[in-house]
């Protein structure tokens, strides 16, 4: 396939998805090699509020607990 750089030196890769990352190798013979990299998934840390219930402290998360994931993690432990 042929792609043409625009006035800002950008080319469009029709098969790439927004956010895809590539390693770019520029070879001495003028070839460019693009290698798609593993997606980076920066899972956001949960926000935790520590509350007192009676005389006991509990942690309260900013998201609902995923019961299936919890079961799976318990089954895998340790």
């Amino acid at each position, binding site marked *: 396939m042929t792609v043409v750089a625009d006035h800002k030196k950008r080319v469009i890769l029709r098969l790439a998805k927004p956010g895809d990352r590539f390693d770019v190798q520029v070879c001495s013979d003028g070839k460019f090699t693009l290698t798609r990299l593993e997606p980076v998934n920066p*899972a*956001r*840390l*949960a926000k*935790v509020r*520590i*509350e007192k*219930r009676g*005389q*006991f*402290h*509990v*942690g*309260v*998360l900013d*998201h*609902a*607990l*995923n*019961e299936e*994931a*919890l079961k*799976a*993690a*318990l*089954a895998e*432990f*340790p």
Partner: protein
Amino acid sequence: MNPMPAPSQTHLLDVNVLLAAIWGNHPQHAKAFAWLSGKSVLLCPLSELGFLRISTNQRVINAPMEKARKLLDQFAKDRKAERIADDLAALESHPEKSEKVTDHYLADLAAKHGARLGTFDTSIAHASVDVIL
């Protein structure tokens, strides 16, 4: 004549009870909280590590490590929990199945310390287990 009150029982907590008791959004939080009332609590490294590992697991709770540690420490203080060592040799526990190795070990460890294992897991066949229903 009033019956003699049952002696208070000491319980080693399974990882699933620790998670439910400490995380207020846990679906079994209320149950764990009520069950713990008036109970003497033991903690051991295995169950504490399980709590930390699952609480900070990206796919499950994804809590910051610092918060998970703080909550565990606060839980131990609030409940006046006694910390015991995992001082039972692995081969002194005799699980029958792969998936029961840790559960059985915790139940045996509890028994060794004159306690019972408190758990939500209904599948542990052991005389020293109390299942929270």
